[in-house]
């Protein structure tokens, strides 16, 4: 089982991100479960959403306590919420920011975590270029595809188009592709984006 925890703020679409990932996994013939945290629904309040992916039916219904990956939609949450709680050394970290991991003051994450598993990426900026709004979801999922290989980019694109029709769907697909490409480049360059770049 692969478990992903999304951290965002109300209105950023953390729940939609979890659902899109589940939809993409389902599209690949996998079992998937997505659900929101049962916290405040106010705009701007910290929210979490969860996605589990497995080859067999998923039975557990508790929040993800020991994620295989965490996706942080808003770097201001780093100081308010225990976003890395339960994350193992082999776990993946993806943060929406134009700054590097070290610039965020998270250099120790790089020491602790397996090589090439921590990535920052300006997903909000990539989204703004394609959507006109800094909704980072699709871009972060594109980057997550590059980081983990959890699902294919084409499954993700199908999920995005299924959820968002017309131009909104196409713009989100482009944002996901941009992010997938940028993330792949950064990962190949062996930690430029990971460590000092961005």
């Amino acid at each position: 089982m692969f478990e992903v925890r999304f951290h965002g703020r109300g209105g950023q679409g953390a729940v939609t991100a979890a659902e899109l990932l589940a939809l993409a996994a389902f599209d690949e013939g996998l079992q998937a479960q997505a659900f929101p945290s049962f916290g405040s629904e106010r705009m701007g309040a910290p929210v979490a959403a969860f996605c589990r992916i497995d080859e067999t039916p998923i039975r557990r219904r508790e929040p993800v306590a020991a994620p295989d990956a965490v996706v942080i939609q808003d770097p201001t949450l780093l100081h308010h919420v225990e976003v890395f709680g339960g994350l193992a050394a082999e776990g993946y970290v993806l943060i929406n920011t134009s700054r590097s991991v070290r610039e965020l003051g998270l250099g120790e994450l790089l020491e602790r975590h397996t090589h090439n598993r921590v990535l920052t990426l300006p997903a909000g900026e990539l989204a703004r270029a394609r959507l006109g709004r800094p909704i980072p979801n699709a871009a972060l999922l594109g980057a997550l595809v590059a980081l983990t290989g959890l699902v294919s980019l084409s499954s993700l694109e199908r999920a995005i188009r299924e959820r968002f029709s017309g131009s909104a769907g196409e713009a989100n697909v482009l944002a996901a592709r941009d992010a997938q490409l940028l993330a792949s480049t950064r990962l190949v360059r062996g930690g430029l984006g990971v460590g000092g770049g961005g």
Partner: protein
Amino acid sequence: MAVASQLEGSLAVARTVARCRPQVICAYPITPQTHIVEALSRIVASGELAPCEFVNVESEFAAMSVAIGASATGARAYTATASQGLLYMAEALFNASGLGLPIVMTVANRAIGAPINIWNDHSDAMALRDCGWVQLYATSNQEAADMHVQAFRLAERCSLPVMVCMDGFVLTHAVEPVELPEQEPVDAYLPPFRPRQVLDPEDPVTMGALVGPEAYTEVRYLAHAKQGEALDEIPVLATDFAARFGRASGGLIETYRCEGADTVIVALGSVFGTLQELVDERRAQGARLGALAIKSFRPFPVGELRAALSSTRGVIVLERAFSVGVGGIVTGDVRAALAGVDVDTATVIAGLGGRAITRSSLHAMLDRHEQGALQPVHFLDLDIDLVERELARHRDGERGGPHAENILRELGIVAAGPV
């Protein structure tokens, strides 16, 4: 064979209800039921269900009143609610069951205020435990969808209203694979509604006649007798459903690895999946643990429970609501079913107001149970120190202030201010 789709639980239920061809849907939105009735209103507006009428009512009391009126004129009626909405219906709920009207209602289970809380537990449905409705509890979104098809047939077969309870948020807002029951087998399984009584100007009858002491007991006993019929009917309907749709859903109870179990955890609703994983983990360590889901809480399956639990030594009833001043609600019925059987019964209250029921907390609880150190009524993950400090503030008639705000302030959720 139906194909699964990756769907939100609410949407799966809405689409399934639509395939049951309701003729009147009346509802008032309330979290976490809203997505269900929103989806149904769109389906009705599309014309797909014509001549079904969607009635936007001004309250839950009106929702149930419209359902009663619609059902009494021979229409297949559906509504959905949760929490305070269910309480607001209370008087009409007793009328619907007392009149024997086969209304089907989804309850997206949610806590009851005060303190106000929008998240899941079973306080709402348990508060209306005795209103005369059949109460079914779904363990998954697949089962929630399937149970609605069975609920309409059960309701109309026994002329009784049926509540399908599904955990708010945990199920209603979870996106997971669901095979929607297809239209053709639903039509074959669920024949058109043939009411046992109809308000018809051509053939006038009185529904809801005043009944005095000379006959009240007999009319009330009829309600009890009909729930007894439902107890026989539910397994038959589940078997027929499995034969037509190719999957097991519903029924009175479901057991998981109870054979040779020393201890069985009994629960209602969506926690059953988590319990199955817990059972596997404990069994891998050598413990002889099983789990049992009660799918039909009203009528209560006394015989099935007795048969399933008679050879076990301990029963832990995991409850998502409690009776203040007593403890468990389901526990009382389980104990009655096991009268004369040598079984230790404990109550664990868990998951109140949306608190997650985690395997880690359940493991810790089971460790205490194995050591014989579990309280007869145990509150999972209760912060007793927090409670003690609040009690201390109110000792000796002190003006301690409102409990909820005090507790939130201690937790740092409400900013500290003048006390």
